[in-house]
């Protein structure tokens, strides 16, 4: 049934239900915030560099360790700016090919790569 066909009472009941749901979700968000925060901290503080790309290869997140490996100070320097599939360095190191293989469902391990940032 579409909303125009609903009675005022029905609508009011639905609104009441929605209000209740919203407040339930709000409560859930509040309730789960510490867990998300914990996960974020975990990723942020992992001693292993973690960089997350969307399927277009665009960088959407990078943790502290990753920034350190690339010699960067702030995540803004790469988030939304670095694209795995357009980065010539990534092509060189085999990271681009690896990305494509991941999109095909593989887990790819590359040998140690030497980055000279000096």
């Amino acid at each position: 049934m579409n909303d125009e066909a609903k009675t005022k009472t029905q609508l009011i009941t639905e609104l009441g239900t929605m209000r209740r749901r919203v407040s339930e979700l709000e409560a859930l968000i509040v309730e789960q915030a510490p867990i998300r925060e914990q996960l974020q901290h975990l990723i942020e503080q992992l001693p292993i560099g973690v960089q997350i790309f969307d399927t277009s290869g665009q960088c959407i997140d990078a943790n502290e360790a990753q920034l350190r490996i690339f010699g960067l100070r702030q995540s803004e320097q790469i988030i939304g700016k670095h694209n795995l599939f357009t980065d010539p360095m990534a092509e060189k190191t085999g990271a681009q090919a690896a990305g494509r293989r991941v999109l095909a469902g593989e887990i790819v391990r590359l040998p140690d790569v030497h980055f000279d940032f000096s």
Partner: protein
Amino acid sequence: MTFFPVRNTVGEIIQIVALNEDVTERNQAIEALQKSEERYRSFFDNSPISLWEEDFSVVKAYLDRLRNEGITDLRRYFEDHPQARTDHIGLIKVVDVNQATLELYQAESKEAFLGELDQEILSEGSLDALIEELLAIDEGKAQFEIETVNRTFAGDKKYLLLTWSVAPGFEKTYGKVLVSFIDVTKRKQYELELTRFRTILNQAGEAIFVTNAQTGHFIDVNETACRLLGYSRKELLKLGVADIEISCSLKTTSQWVAHVEQIKQAGEFLFRKGLQRRQDGTTYPVELMLSHQSFEGEDYILAVARDITEQKRLEDRLHQAQRMEAVGQLAGGIAHNFNNMLTAIMGYTGLSLETLPANHPAASDLQGIQKTAERAAKLVQQLLAFTSKQVVQPQILNINELIISIKIMLRQLISEDIELVILPAPELGQVKIDPGQFEQVIVNLILNARAAMPMGGKLTIETTNIILDQEYASQHVEVDPGDYVMMAICDTGSGMAEEVQQHIFEPFFTTKDVGQGTGLGLATCFGIVKQNSGHIAVYSEPEQGTTFKVYLPRLEETPVKLSQSNQSDYLPTGDETIFIVEDEITVREMAARILHQQGYTILRAANGEEALELITEQAKPTIHLLITDVIMPRMGGGILADKLKNIYPTIKVLYISGYTDNAIVHHGVLEPGVNFLPKPFTPNALARKVRGVLDQADGESLA
């Protein structure tokens, strides 16, 4: 770098996640490890010390198995099972060796070592070390060190210091053990050389002292030094020169410094005599050879000391012998003159007595003179006996017979409270000696024994055959080794101190009160024994008695029977012509007067030359007998007699002398066929001797 997909709930890939790990540090660590490994490898390969990597794990397992089998004493097990020992060696696995190992063992390649331990390189001496090694593994030691001996592949013997330590992590299994061999062959050779050098030093007959030149303390001494001084080496090394050397004062620093300076100044060696004190306080004389040495900036005094006690003793004996000789010569000279004078005194006294009536008041005075002169003559006779210049007529005799023949006389010499025991040896050898002289020796020794036993005691005369060997002769410079007959006269009297024994045979040495003895008794014995190539020795301890031992050379000839000379107061006479040649006028005139009174015709001369002149002048008078002194100025009696015998082939010769040289005698012993009358003589003795000589047939001599 790891890439993985993130899927949504329906399995669509929504994200790509890249995981990156910074491996810089890890890579650096690996690199460092590799470098360390290389460094270790380089160190292992290039080490100048022989290094081995070995695997003892099989050995360890084997040892554990033995333990499990209940063997508790592994050392004993290996000693009892030599085969087990060698089997174990085969279980040691060599993993690697370095270049130095190849050089040490003179091997061509590593392959010679790898795998089972090569038993060829183990020598006999290394097996004991191997047992210790196995025991160390058994005890679970992580480190081990021992000296061992191995052989190289070329067969050379090497002394090695073996050290091993278990690599960390292998303490239980002994799977990896780093072993090193340090070649100590040179050090060992030095040690052996040092040991040899020390052995030689210790066996040297001389005491050797190495002294610190600054302090005078001993740094090193040899065994002879310890033995001579009666200290242990440890004790002696705490002492210094000042503690043992007492002949010169070295107590103060300045005295020591001066002493060292003197040694330095001496150049190579300073020779000195010294006196050292033993631990027990006794001393002994030494001859020191001192030198100054510098070594590694330190100054030392090297002293080589020789104990000269024995040498000094022999020197003393030689001096003693020389002194006796000198005294003898002096006494001989005096006796010669005395004899001439006594001959005159006795002769003239005798003549005067004959011319005086028996009841004349001067007669008894003259008899007193005569008796005194006779006593003086006896004294001179003893002196001559001591000087071995008494003229004697030795015979071959058995001294047992002689002792027994005079036993009664000897008994009378000693007091009744002295027991006389004579122990003659059966089959005693013969000796050659003048019986009168030997009698004199016995009498003098008996008198000496009597004096030593005023309270009585026991006197033993014992004879025996004896051999004095080379050793005895080397201890007594004056003795020739050989066969001897020995007579020992032993008393139980007061004995003598060492100092008295030293001088006992010297003339005029006496322990008796002044006027009690002449001091010639034992000197006479000494002289007589010497004259007969014998030896006299004294053994005495105060309060223990004295033994004199008289040694005379043993002969193999048969003895002659002792003849008794019978003397009577009757003075024989004659009418022959007698030529008296004597340089001493009193003797010559006295003899002339005596013989003239007895009816002889007398010719006189003062010496040989004068005698020969007389004969030519008087155109060869008849001469039956020549009486001549032996020693005279301008031709002695011997030459004169020879010359006269050419002129008068039947002439008889009688020598008179108080002192003889070898004109008619050898060492005081008359040659056969020679007639001799010793001075001083009495008128009676002269008359009797002259008659005897005149009456003897040609070539016969009077005994």
